Structure formats: structure tokens, C-alpha cells
């Protein structure tokens, strides 16, 4: 109980009455979870934008046909199950009983089909599913059918995708919105309801427990699989942009959970006996150095390879999360460390002895003759900003004719869309980071694509990477997936669409009276007080 609350109640109603009032306030408080999220929630449509905060909002209010467990295995969530027919070319999915949208309407296959169709137009995994699907159609209110061109084992992994963007199910009238336009309402069938009347972007987002939600029976919550049991009547996201203020609010008990405190604040919070700091996801995020493959100097593969001996992943990670090795990994390849596809194939150039001099020799051999290059990076987003600073120092030490352009994130995301050469305002190199889910397999792994101008910013052309990605989708089992992943990494270390610069854990801070948090991302089922 806050001293302030006790004093206030005591002054207002006399000491004895004050104690009663304070006790009532304390009980009400126990039903509310107050959290400071990683960012402001500006957009409510998780299909329209791929912002992580909107994805987290999506997991609050929407549900998916299949959930993904912490071992990246899909399990039925809204689905009761499915039947494969015609040698796996037809999949009939049945919805489980009792599913209801927040407006009271039942969830029907007529809602699910347009939701999936909208998702398949925006999401790369969804686009892949669309390319192997002749039709996805309503059988009846509770059943839908995928008619596939050929058996597609990765279908359920796609429908269970956790991160950007999950295949969330919306009411039919919303799901029919153009995927490049925002939906106008936030109505799902998930464990929490969005309180539109209390939404104040930049200040507060409120959810209440969905009393009509029926969690699946049995099992334990694991990532987005298992029963989604909400223990709080109300969840409030308090948008506090200042890290010191958020930390102070957590220390005083004004908030219960601070999703993403910066490293220096984590140390402070770690010393408080009422607070615990832990990895929000046991799997790390991966930092990357991205080249622009369209123009000199990094259209030259030999030059991209030349800088590898100078890249020390420790340096980049220490800048992001500090020097405590428990918070980062080195020797990181193209798949998230700790996931089934992570491997060590062809990583020698990143793990051997580090040498700037050796890199300079290789640069000369690659024909680098002082052509200008431009490194762009943000100043207002922690990890990319820190990696950019280390990268800027590195390119200077390597003797590049470098122009370092630091700006706010809004400017960087615009500037990186430029396909112009450096002389016309283009860029050559940037640093950013991706979540564990994004790099767990080739499906959502945007920077690993080699489809030229259709690829993620930097636009590498590497047809073999595309072939291997397609092969991974068709892989019959995990062993086959692993074999393909090793080959992908071998090709990637040769082509270098990007260079992994290490992986780091994202820590979160909670009051000690909270337990049952589901690992992976900021999820609000399972977590309870006491």
C-alpha cells in the first residue's frame, strides 16, 4: 500500500475509516494490471502495420486459428482440429464451440475466411500460402476448407505465426477492409476487450477481461498456444516515454510492469527487492548490418566479405546491452540462437580471430579505391542506435570514405527506401535488429530474401537463397528443415545479404507480486498477482 494512499484516505475520513477505504482501494487495485509498454500504440490494425506494439495489442483482443508453443510447434487454438483429405491437398479446419466476438456475435467460418485472405495479401508467410492455395472457402458456419495446389506442411505454422503479422481473426465486416487501409474498429474474440472510449493514444490504452472468452481446455500456456486465462479484470497500458520516470513509477508501485527498460535502468531496478528483471523472451533478438546491394561499394561481393574479419560481435552487443555476457550471444549466424534451425555452418569468418588489418588487406584485394559510402542510422531507438555508433567507428577504422548520417527513426525509415546511389542521397549500410520469431525460420526472415528489388531494403539478388527458402516450405520434417537451414546459412555467408552482429536478450521488469507470466512477448494471459 502506498504511504500516499494511506495518508490521503486517513486525512479524508478519519484514521479508522481511512484504513477501510485504503483497504478497499487496495482490493480494487489487485484486479488491475498496469504496464508500461515498449512504445505508444498508435495504430490498432495489426494487419495494416507491422509495428510490434500493434502486434501485442492484437494478441490482447484477437485470437488465431492455431497457436505456437515455445518450441515453435503449432497447436489448435480457435480451431477444434483439422482433417487432411486428398493426400494433403485439402485441409478442412473446424472451429471450436463457444467462440464469440466482443460484440456478442458468434465467430463463423464466414469471418475466418476473409480474415485469412486479408492476412495473406500482406504477410510474406501468408503470401507464400496464397501461392500454393487454389481457394480458401467456407464449408459451413463452423468449417472452412483450404484447397491446396500441393501438400503444404508449413500451413499450420503460418496460421500460428506469432509475430508480424499473426493471422488474427476479425468479424467479416472488418476483415473485408482493403489490407492497405486500417480497420475502423478493434473487435476480436480474444481474451481481452479493447476499451475504445478510454483509448488515448500516447497516454493510455485500456483492456477489460472478456468474460465470454472460453479458453481451450487442458494444457499449459506456452507462447500463444494453450489456455489463455485472463486473471486481471482490467489491463492498463500507461505510455511513459521517459525511462527514468517509468522506472520510478515501477519502484513506487504506480505501475506493475515495465516491458522494455533500457540496460542502465535494468541495473537500477535489479537492485530493488520488490522488482525482478528477467528476459521477456528466453530467445534473443539478432542485430544485423545491412548492405545496399544495388550500388557501389557494396554491390561488390568481395568487399562485403572483406569486412568480416573486422566485425567483433561482442563490441556491438556490449554497446546494446552492456558487458554482462549473460545478456548477449556471439558466434551468431542467420537463425535465432536456441531455435531448432540455428547452426554453425560457414560461420568461420565471423568467429575466428578479429583483425582490422586483415580486413583492410581484403578490401584492397576486393578493389576498394576510396569510393564514398553512407551509413545511416537512428539516434532515438536504443539497439540500432548503439550498433550504428559501433559501426560508424568500424568503417572509419577500416578507412572507408564514409559519410555517417544520424537522424530520428522517422527519417531513417524514409531514407532507407531510397534506391538511389550515394551521390544522389542513397545509402550503403545500416544497422537494425529483429525479434527471435523473425529469424526462427526462413518464412518470416525478411532480410534473408534474395529476390532483388522485391526484397527487403538493401535489395540483394541471390536466387539460390530463394530456391532454398522454397525448399524449406516443402520440407517434410525437422531434419530436412535443419539440412536446408545449414545450406541457407552457407549461401548467406557467401552472398552476405547482411552480416549478423550478435544477439541480445530483451529484459523486462516486474513487481515481485506478479507470477505466471508467459514468456516470449508481452502477453497478458497466465499472469496473476500473488
Amino acid at each position, binding site marked *: 500500500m502506498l504511504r500516499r494512499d494511506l495518508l490521503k484516505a486517513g486525512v479524508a475520513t478519519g484514521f479508522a475509516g481511512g484504513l477501510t477505504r485504503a483497504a478497499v482501494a487496495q482490493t480494487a487495485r489487485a484486479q488491475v494490471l498496469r504496464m508500461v509498454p515498449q512504445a505508444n500504440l498508435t495504430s490498432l490494425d495489426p494487419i495494416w502495420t507491422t509495428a510490434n506494439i500493434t502486434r501485442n495489442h492484437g494478441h490482447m483482443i484477437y485470437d488465431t486459428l492455431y497457436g505456437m508453443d515455445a518450441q515453435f510447434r503449432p497447436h489448435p487454438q480457435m480451431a477444434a482440429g483439422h482433417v487432411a483429405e486428398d493426400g494433403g491437398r485439402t485441409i478442412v479446419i473446424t472451429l471450436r464451440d463457444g467462440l464469440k466476438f466482443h460484440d456478442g456475435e458468434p465467430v463463423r467460418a464466414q469471418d475466418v475466411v476473409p480474415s485469412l485472405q486479408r492476412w495473406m495479401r500482406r504477410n510474406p508467410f501468408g503470401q507464400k500460402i496464397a501461392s500454393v492455395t487454389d481457394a480458401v472457402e467456407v464449408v459451413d458456419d463452423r468449417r472452412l476448407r483450404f484447397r491446396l495446389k500441393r501438400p503444404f506442411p508449413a500451413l499450420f505454422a503460418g496460421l500460428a505465426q506469432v509475430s508480424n503479422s499473426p493471422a488474427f481473426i476479425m468479424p467479416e465486416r472488418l476483415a473485408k477492409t482493403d489490407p492497405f487501409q486500417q480497420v475502423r474498429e478493434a473487435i476480436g474474440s480474444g481474451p481481452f476487450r479493447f476499451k475504445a472510449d478510454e483509448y488515448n493514444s500516447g497516454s493510455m490504452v485500456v483492456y477489460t477481461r472478456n468474460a465470454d472468452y472460453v479458453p481451450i481446455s487442458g494444457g499449459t500456456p506456452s507462447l500463444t498456444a494453450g489456455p489463455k486465462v485472463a486473471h486481471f479484470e482490467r489491463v492498463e497500458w500507461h505510455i511513459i516515454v521517459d525511462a*527514468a520516470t517509468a522506472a520510478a513509477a515501477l519502484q*513506487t508501485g504506480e505501475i506493475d510492469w515495465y516491458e522494455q527498460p533500457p540496460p542502465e535502468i535494468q541495473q537500477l531496478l535489479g537492485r530493488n527487492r520488490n522488482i525482478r528483471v528477467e528476459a521477456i523472451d528466453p530467445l534473443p533478438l539478432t542485430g544485423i548490418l545491412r548492405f545496399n546491394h544495388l550500388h557501389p561499394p557494396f554491390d561488390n561481393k568481395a568487399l562485403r566479405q572483406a569486412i568480416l574479419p573486422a566485425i567483433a560481435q561482442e563490441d556491438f552487443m556490449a554497446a546494446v546491452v552492456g558487458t554482462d555476457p549473460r545478456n548477449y550471444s556471439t558466434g551468431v549466424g542467420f537463425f535465432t540462437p536456441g531455435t531448432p534451425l540455428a547452426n554453425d555452418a560457414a560461420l568461420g569468418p565471423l568467429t575466428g580471430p578479429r583483425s582490422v588489418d586483415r580486413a583492410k588487406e581484403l578490401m584492397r584485394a576486393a578493389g576498394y579505391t576510396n569510393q564514398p559510402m553512407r551509413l545511416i542510422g537512428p539516434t532515438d531507438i536504443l539497439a540500432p542506435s548503439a550498433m550504428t555508433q559501433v559501426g560508424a567507428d568500424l568503417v572509419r577504422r577500416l578507412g572507408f570514405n564514409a559519410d555517417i548520417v544520424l537522424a*530520428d527513426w522517422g527519417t531513417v525509415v524514409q531514407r532507407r527506401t531510397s534506391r538511389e546511389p550515394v551521390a544522389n542521397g542513397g545509402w550503403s549500410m545500416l544497422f537494425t535488429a529483429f525479434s527471435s520469431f523473425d529469424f526462427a525460420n526462413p518464412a518470416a526472415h525478411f532480410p534473408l530474401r534474395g529476390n532483388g528489388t522485391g526484397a527487403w531494403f538493401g535489395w540483394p539478388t541471390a536466387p539460390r537463397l530463394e530456391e532454398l527458402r522454397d525448399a524449406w516450405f516443402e520440407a517434410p520434417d525437422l531434419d530436412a528443415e535443419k539440412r536446408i537451414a545449414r545450406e541457407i546459412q552457407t549461401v548467406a555467408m557467401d552472398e552476405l545479404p547482411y552480416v549478423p552482429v550478435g544477439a541480445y536478450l530483451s529484459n523486462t521488469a516486474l513487481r515481485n507480486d506478479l507470477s505466471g507470466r508467459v514468456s516470449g512477448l508481452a502477453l497478458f494471459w497466465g499472469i496473476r498477482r500473488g
Partner: protein
Amino acid sequence: MFAYIVRRTLATIPVMAVVALFVFSLLYIAPGDPAAVIAGDQATPQDVERIRESLGLDRPYLVRFSAWLWDILRGDLGVSIFTNLPVSTMIQQRIEPTLSLMIVTLILAISIAVPMGVVAAWKQGTMIDRAVMAFAVLGFSVPVFVVGYLLAYYFALEWDLLPVQGYTPFSQGFWPWLENLILPAIALGSVYIALIARITRATMLEVLQQDYIRTARAKGVGQRSILFLHALKNAAVPIVTVIGIGIALLIGGAVVTESVFAIPGLGRLTVDAILRRDYPVIQGVVLLFSFVYVLVNLAIDLAYTLFDPRIRY
């Protein structure tokens, strides 16, 4: 007087038109792309382009400007690119916290700074005067966010007397409302108090040298009456001017204060909108701030007549 008010009010129209043109053009040439921010880190360039088209950001400058201007003339500030909410709704949500913060800061600053300045002038050259001046220098020199952090550390973290952050609407009670504003108002008001105290002292020193003050003393008028009735009223015009000019300081300072104390006001809204390139929101808020500033200047000009009957419009 009435004609003057009408004339000044009409004069705001061209001022606002210039502000509108300036704001729109500045945002048009500024780097940044809301479509890229919306699309997120994982979007492809094609996704960004489709979103840009759907938002109408690919249209030429003149088409966009004339559409926006037409909406403004009809009283429509537009819709936020990100939240899909009308800009007027977003401003309504945010105006109360900012207004509350400014009012509490103004009351706090004036009620502390004016007596401080008066007393410093009265006790010129003494320890009290030096202490007031030292405080004024400190108030000017220490940034608002440092004051804010120090206050939060002691009053919230160490002594648990006031909340660290947040805002409670006035409709939920006077004390809950005030409780959240005390620390931010002190932090924001520190510069303002310093400014007003210095001006009050300087102006009072000048007035206290006047013949009519000496005459009042000779007639046996009490010290309090001399200071607060005779001298202060005649020193009021420059003080009111500084208070008015200081409102611009408050608007600027509110951005920082609202960030430090997590107050959901217009300052935060502006910064968030700038970082995201939410053009309609930036344009709406800047127009509002400009309009308020013009009105404050008008109010100050009118207030002169209250303190100095020789001023006529």
C-alpha cells in the same frame, strides 16, 4: 476599445494564414515518411508505396495543400494518419492536462515570483535580495528536466508524498487533479518564477525611486500599502508583458515537463506526431498554439488599460 478588439481579432486571420502556409510547407519539405513508419521494419518497399498511395501522400504539393486548406476553412482539422481519430478529438483529449498544467504553473509562479521580486526590491542589497537573485539565477540555469527528476526523486521515490507521473482529470476530484500537477508545475515554473521575480525587482526598484513614493512615505503611508498598492500597480505593465511572453516559454517547457511526468498533454502529442510524421496532427496543434499565442498577446494589450489609465485604444 471594441473597435480595437475587432481590428486585432481580424488581424489574426492573415497571421494564421501565414502560419498555415509555413507549417504545411515545412512539413512537406522535411524528411520522413509516415507510410514507412506505419509499414514497420518488416515491410517491403512495395508495401510502403501502397500505404503511401492509400494515404494520398503521393499527390502533388498544391493538391494536398488546397485540400487541407479547404478542410481547415470548414473547421475540419483532418484525421490522424495513424490513429484514424479526428485531430480535433485528439486535441480535445489532450487540452485539459496542458491547460491545467499551465494554469497551476501560472498561479504558482505569479504568487511566488511577484512577492519575491517586491521583497527583493524593498530589501535591496541585503541577504534577502541576494538570496532572491541567487534563486533567480539558479531557476534560469537548471534545465526543467533536471528539476523534474530531482523533485520526483525526493517527493515521490524517497518520501512517497506525491505521484511520480500521470494525470487525473479535474472531474475526478480537486485533490487527485492537483496532486499530479504539483511537481510538474514546480519544475515548469522554476524558470518562470526566476524571470518574473527578476523583472518585478527591477521594475519595482525603478518605481520606488519615484517622487510620489517619497511623498507617500512622507505622508506616513504604511510600507505594505506603498509596496503593493502604489508601487506594484505602477510597475505592473512590464510585469504583465513578461508574464504574457512567458506563456510561450510555458508552451515550450510543457513539452519537456509532460515527457518527464508522463502527462498526456498537447506537448507530448506534438512530439509524438513529429516523430511519426503524423502531418494532420502536427498541423492542427501548431495552428492551435499559434492561435493561443495571438490571443494571449491581445489579452495582454487589453490588460494594460487596467493598470495604466493613460493607455487608450
